[in-house]
């Protein structure tokens, strides 16, 4: 995924966060340039609404600005939290659920299996995930996309795809296995 020129390319997420705690605006900009593309793309895919996706993006980075000191790198990765929190908020909005999902920096730990700090790593991952999905039969791909991007439960997916519940569970499990195999 392309992103704006990152003048802080070598800085780790953690060092940027430390600077954000000291209210260093350039560190927030660097972090934003690093992850805004994937966070925005994810929210937009879920909501299909440019304004709503941008609002989620702004809210998340504003939250980082205000509460960066609460983030504990021992408990997980920042991009992991961003991806999970963006999805939670977008799906809550899509399905008109509680508009305040539990995604505080201190509450949600997400351990990513790979480092996403460089644009090259993100581009490589993009290709691998696309490979994994394109290798799936239609049913498996539809099931995982409905679960991830529409926030549907097993039973909702079974009803949408007119497939038995057990089959849907198997499809999702196989899709996860395909992703893990691609990332191995």
């Amino acid at each position, binding site marked *: 995924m392309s992103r704006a020129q990152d003048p802080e390319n070598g800085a780790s997420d953690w060092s940027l966060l430390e600077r954000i705690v000291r209210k260093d605006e350039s560190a927030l900009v660097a972090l934003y340039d690093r992850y805004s593309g994937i966070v925005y793309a994810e929210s*937009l895919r879920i909501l299909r609404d440019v304004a709503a996706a941008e609002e989620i993006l702004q809210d998340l980075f504003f939250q980082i600005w205000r509460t960066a000191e609460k983030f504990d790198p021992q408990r997980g990765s920042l991009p992991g939290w961003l991806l999970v929190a963006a999805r939670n908020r977008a799906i809550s909005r899509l399905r008109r659920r509680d508009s305040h999902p539990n995604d505080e920096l201190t509450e949600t730990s997400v351990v*990513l299996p790979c480092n996403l700090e460089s644009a090259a790593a993100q581009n490589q991952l993009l290709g691998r995930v696309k490979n994994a999905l394109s290798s799936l039969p239609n049913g498996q791909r539809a099931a995982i996309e409905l679960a991830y991007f529409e926030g549907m439960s097993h039973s909702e997916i079974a009803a949408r795809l007119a497939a038995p519940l057990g089959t849907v569970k198997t499809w999702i499990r196989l899709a996860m296995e395909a992703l893990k195999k691609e990332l191995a």
Partner: protein
Amino acid sequence: MSAQHPIREEDLELLALGAVAGEECESMRVHLAACADCSRRFAEARGRVALFAFAAPPQNPPASARRRLLQKIRAEELASETSAPATPARSQYAPFHPQARWWKTIWLPATVALAILTLLLWTSDRRIDNQLRQLQQQVRVYQAQAHRMQELAAMLAAQDTKTVALAPTPRVPNAAWGRVKYNSRMGIICYTGDLPAPPPDKEYQMWIVPMAGSPISGGAFMPASFDQGRMCMAKMPAGLACKSFAVTIEPMGGMPHPTGPMVLSGSGL
């Protein structure tokens, strides 16, 4: 009820995906709140699932979005600066207050004591909040279980509930047995029985054979996962006319159509 430890990796991934709902979801969350090991594995499952974000078509936010974010944080900084109480300018020649030194000797310890007390109260408050949240989750699980038990009791007491004995096939020991009670009007099926542990990576799966059409799954199960003793309950399409019932051995998670060997069967006619 809390999920069994350890929760399987694939179940943690389904939970992270948000695909698990109802009682199953609640029982896993209750277990995760109390189990550090599963909680750590859940954080890893969340990370694997989060990578599906990269399946979204690449899209960069408009350049104006970054500008608006910076305007927002500058406005907030400005607001916090202007709302902070102004510090009175310190006089070059401060008046002499004989009680000031005495006051300073108790001011610092008093502040430290107050800070410790505040911290203790805050910690205690958070602990109580967490306990309350766990109890609320448990109550929801118990309510769901009670509802299921009420449904089951109503089904067992209904006049039009039918019983079918399932006989073992040569695939299982003679001692194996099964019995199905079902009510087509209520759309509920209840299975009791005794089966040996299935082969590794396999589960048992119940099948309802309708008067017309292909067998319908009544759910995959493990003998150890029965709700109460050796009994499990599932939903079936309401109004379905059942010809027979069967239990087969299938891959974990179940299959859309029977593929494995039959271990129990019985006629519903």
